[in-house]
């Protein structure tokens, strides 16, 4: 039997090692013996392969409570005494290296503060309406309406929908129909002044069938909301109205003149919710009071209002699709679609989406943007990582100084485990300190970033309930992240080398320090990726906001009268004429849509010659004849269309003309385009291309034409002035508002500058830009802080070298260069790592824009230069300071 065969018949070594590792030493020999005996038998019986397999399997079976090694016994008194010693050592370390400690604490604190703010934000946004029992079965009915050619979404439904759904649909446990109430005056008898209340709702007992978690302090839903003119208040609202007095039975006047009797009290809801009502007026009131009911169109199937809400609780077995399938029948039966040219669709939205879906806003609701939240979490993680790297770098750099301590401790009987505990403990203390500071910084930061944060977010959650656990979790995580490597490295020193003071030579820790260098590279790679991101997002944003759209957008104000589609055409036309006469308005156009809009409508039209046929999906912009004048859209050929009550003549843009095959585009003038089989319309002119939507998409083929005024709801006004501010602009707007109020006294004048509307297309991009700016600033700051600490350490270590160099004639500049060059290389390496990653991410991000800036070389050069500049500034200043020192001081004593 040769060696090889011998080896083959041995059980697997690693399995044995595993057994030795976990097994209690007292039990080990017998178990190993038994297994060995069996192994020999298995080899005979099944062959080596299977025997080895069985051996491993059996060892795994032995991994049981009775075999597992117990901790070796250390007297609790010993650990207690050692604890004192550890604390003392830690305190001495802090005192000895004030700068390092300060840098560590401060860097970690900033990282943790941003992590704290961000995790609170994320936690807060994801906590909305997550607390309801059976919340996963609660859905909201949302409406999709097709006006003219495009779909509009609405979070409300026609008021009869939920009532009918309750009667006719299957698969539902409960249906809640309720109406939110516009802010309204509320008067308490006996008090002089009325107060405005915002969170009113008209709801019946059914509300509490869907949302079952409300706690009733007085009354119950069945009796408290059954009758007309009853109102249920939350506890704090009752206290606001009546103070310490008994609220139940009191009368409150809502809507100027309607008296409601308080019939129940609800406990305040401590949770985050988008349905934070304080006054529940009984639904039965709507049946009793015709005037009030009129506001909510209880019988109207045609009126969709975002204040009329319908929530469903599905039964255990049904799926949303089961419910959605039943809507078409309901629409056919009740909603006479043809009557007003509106098409309806209903969908179900899960309750958990309500806080994130911008398509179905509740009145006054603030929603959150999920991708931004994920981005935030990532940023927090990176900042924390950079701060932890600082810590690791400084600790490992200083490790040499503590190697002798490690040696002495080991000689005196410390186990490696104890040392690891000690160092981790020290890290924990530092981190705890940083955590305290982080709370302060977070407090200040939340004030500073108030506008980007949820309004009802505050640090108080930290002290409430289990909030402090979050803080502790962050501290614990950071201590492990930052402390694990230094603790492992320090505790691994062999006492012999450590005590002979040969650490520097034997481990190469000071000189080569590959780990530290690669961590710096990593850190600066993150920082530079952030810088690149900032520059790219910034330049794209600038491009989006300042690109020539092909039409004029300065000094243009636009508005839509409230609910204009239900209004008479005459009112709008007269208003338009009166506005035209104002001195502050130099031109006005009524249009269906704005030149660049996020909504659109399109249809397929045909151009036919004897030989060929071109079908083009064309986007439609309808307006009166002054549209081109208001927006300064250039006519390239032909003429503008004439006034007409139906679509009679067409203007095409260049893209459309080319799509039909006219080259040059001007040739399209005079040709006939078929809208459908019956309508052939002449092209009377071609306009220069303008952007017909956000720059995400290419310019579409567009046709423009006159349309009956019934379908035109947008007022586009070119002011006689320039810009958005100034006295004259204010005056013009005041003029316009005055005229508007004469025509629409019931609705406020809500106008927008077109520039702002266009800027609003890119809200998400602006949010991204803001976020990445802050992240960049913090990332660079923490990285430089770490660099500063490291450089001051190495200069201290090499203070004698500096002295000798100076004595031998080196200039300050030479010394500074010597120290800086090392870091120049590191910055370049990190740039090489960061650039492709940032470039890839940025081009991914840019790829959603059809029109974008070029990622030029300039951006990359700027990035590397600024990173280099910052690094050199940090390193240079510190080493310059060291190089200035008199060599006598450093060389006098050995």
């Amino acid at each position, binding site marked *: 039997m040769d060696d090889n065969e011998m080896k083959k018949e041995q059980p697997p070594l690693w399995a044995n090692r595993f057994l030795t590792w976990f097994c209690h030493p007292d*039990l080990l*020999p*017998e*178990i*190993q*013996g*038994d*297994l*060995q*005996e*069996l192994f*020999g038998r298995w080899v005979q019986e099944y062959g080596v392969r299977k025997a080895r397999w069985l051996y491993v399997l*059996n060892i795994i*079976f*032995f991994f*049981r409570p*009775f*075999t597992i090694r117990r901790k070796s016994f250390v007297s609790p008194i010993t650990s207690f005494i050692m604890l004192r010693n550890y604390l003392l050592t830690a305190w001495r370390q802090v005192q000895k290296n004030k700068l390092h400690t300060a840098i560590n604490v401060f860097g970690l604190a900033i990282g943790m503060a941003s992590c704290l703010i961000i995790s609170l934000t994320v936690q807060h946004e994801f906590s909305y309406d997550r607390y309801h029992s059976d919340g996963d079965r609660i859905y909201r009915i949302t409406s999709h309406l097709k006006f003219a050619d495009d779909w509009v979404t609405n979070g409300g439904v026609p008021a009869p929908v939920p009532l009918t759904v309750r009667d006719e649909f299957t698969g539902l446990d409960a249906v809640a129909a309720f109406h939110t109430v516009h802010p309204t005056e509320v008067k308490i008898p006996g008090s002089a002044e009325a107060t405005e209340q915002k969170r009113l709702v008209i709801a019946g007992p059914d509300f509490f069938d869907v949302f079952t978690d409300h706690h009733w302090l007085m009354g119950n839903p069945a009796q408290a909301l059954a009758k007309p003119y009853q109102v249920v208040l939350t506890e704090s609202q009752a206290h606001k109205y009546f103070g310490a007095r008994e609220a139940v039975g009191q009368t409150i006047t809502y809507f100027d003149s309607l008296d409601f009797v308080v019939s129940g009290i609800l406990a305040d809801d401590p949770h985050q919710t988008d349905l934070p009502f304080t006054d529940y007026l009984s639904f039965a009131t709507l049946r009793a009071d015709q005037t009030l009911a009129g506001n909510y169109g209880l019988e109207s199937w045609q009126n969709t209002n975002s204040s009329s809400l319908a929530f469903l609780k599905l039964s255990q077995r049904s799926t949303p699709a089961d419910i959605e399938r039943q809507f078409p029948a309901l629409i056919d039966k009740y909603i006479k679609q043809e009557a007003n040219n509106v098409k309806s669709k209903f969908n179900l939205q899960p309750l958990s989406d309500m806080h994130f879906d911008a398509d179905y806003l509740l009145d006054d609701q603030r929603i959150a943007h999920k991708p931004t939240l994920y981005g935030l979490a990532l940023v927090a993680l990176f900042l924390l990582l950079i701060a932890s790297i600082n810590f690791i770098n400084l600790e490992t750099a200083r490790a040499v100084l503590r190697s002798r301590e490690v040696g002495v401790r080991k000689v005196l009987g410390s186990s490696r485990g104890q040392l690891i505990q000690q160092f981790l403990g020290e890290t924990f203390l530092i981190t705890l300190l940083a955590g305290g500071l982080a709370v302060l910084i977070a407090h200040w930061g939340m004030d500073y970033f108030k506008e980007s944060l949820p309004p009802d977010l505050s640090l108080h959650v930290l002290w409430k309930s289990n909030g402090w656990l979050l803080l502790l979790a962050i501290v614990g995580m950071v201590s492990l992240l930052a402390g694990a490597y230094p603790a492992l490295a320090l505790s691994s020193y062999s006492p012999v080398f450590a005590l002979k003071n040969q650490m520097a030579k034997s481990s190469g820790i000071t000189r080569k320090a590959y780990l530290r260098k690669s961590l710096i590279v990593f850190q600066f790679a993150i920082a530079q990726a952030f810088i690149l991101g900032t520059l790219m997002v910034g330049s794209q944003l600038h491009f989006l906001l300042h690109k020539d759209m092909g039409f004029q957008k300065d000094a243009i104000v636009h508005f839509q009268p409230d609910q204009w589609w239900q209004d008479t055409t005459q009112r709008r036309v007269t208003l338009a004429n009166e506005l035209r006469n104002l001195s502050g308005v130099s031109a006005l156009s009524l249009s269906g849509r704005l030149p660049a809009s996020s909504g659109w409508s399109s249809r397929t039209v045909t151009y036919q010659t004897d030989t060929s046929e071109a079908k083009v999906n064309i986007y439609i912009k309808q307006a009166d004849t002054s549209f081109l004048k208001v927006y300064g859209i250039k006519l390239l050929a032909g003429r503008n269309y004439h006034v007409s009550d139906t679509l009679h003549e067409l203007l095409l843009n260049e893209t459309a003309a080319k799509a039909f095959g006219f080259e040059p585009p001007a040739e399209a003038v005079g040709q006939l385009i078929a809208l459908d089989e019956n309508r052939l319309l002449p092209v009377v002119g071609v306009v220069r291309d303008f952007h017909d939507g956000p720059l995400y998409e290419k310019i579409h083929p567009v046709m423009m034409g006159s349309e009956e005024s019934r379908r035109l709801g947008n007022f586009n006004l070119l002011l006689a002035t320039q810009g958005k501010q100034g006295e004259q602009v204010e005056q013009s707007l005041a003029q316009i508002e005055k005229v508007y109020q004469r025509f629409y006294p019931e609705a406020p004048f809500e106008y927008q500058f077109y520039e702002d509307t266009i800027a609003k297309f890119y809200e998400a991009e602006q949010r991204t830009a803001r976020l990445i700016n802050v992240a960049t600033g913090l990332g660079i700051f923490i990285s430089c802080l770490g660099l500063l600490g490291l450089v001051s350490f190495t200069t201290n270590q090499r203070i004698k070298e500096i002295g000798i160099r100076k004595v031998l004639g080196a200039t300050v500049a030479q010394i500074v260069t010597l120290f800086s060059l090392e870091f120049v290389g590191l910055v370049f390496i990190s740039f090489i790592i960061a650039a492709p990653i940032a470039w890839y991410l940025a081009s991914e991000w840019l790829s959603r824009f059809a029109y974008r800036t070029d990622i030029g070389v300039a951006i990359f050069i700027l990035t590397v230069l600024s990173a280099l500049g910052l690094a050199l500034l940090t390193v240079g200043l510190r080493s310059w300071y060291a190089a200035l020192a008199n060599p006598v001081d450093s060389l006098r004593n050995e």
Partner: protein
Amino acid sequence: MKGTHLGEFQELVMLTVGLLYDDAYGVAIQDEIKKQTGRKVTLSTVHAALNRLEDKGLLTSRLGGATEERGGRPKRLFKITAYGRQALEQSRAMRNRMWGLIPKVAWES
């Protein structure tokens, strides 16, 4: 009764220890259980039971019998204690008593 109560498998292991007399260690017990009852049990299960029974004071053990085939490692040889014997006897007495109490009629249906 508590403390002397034996589980079914524990009783089986104790009986096996008894009948193996001076050669009752892990592998041998595993083999014997298979021979006597046809039950396949893993070695770790046997060890776990032996450990437990020794903790309870029903078995006692000594180390011995290191052989070549065991890689020079000793066997742990088990023996039933007086207390263990008492527990076994109690268990058997209880069974016998209950067997005797079953009326004949019960077997005839």
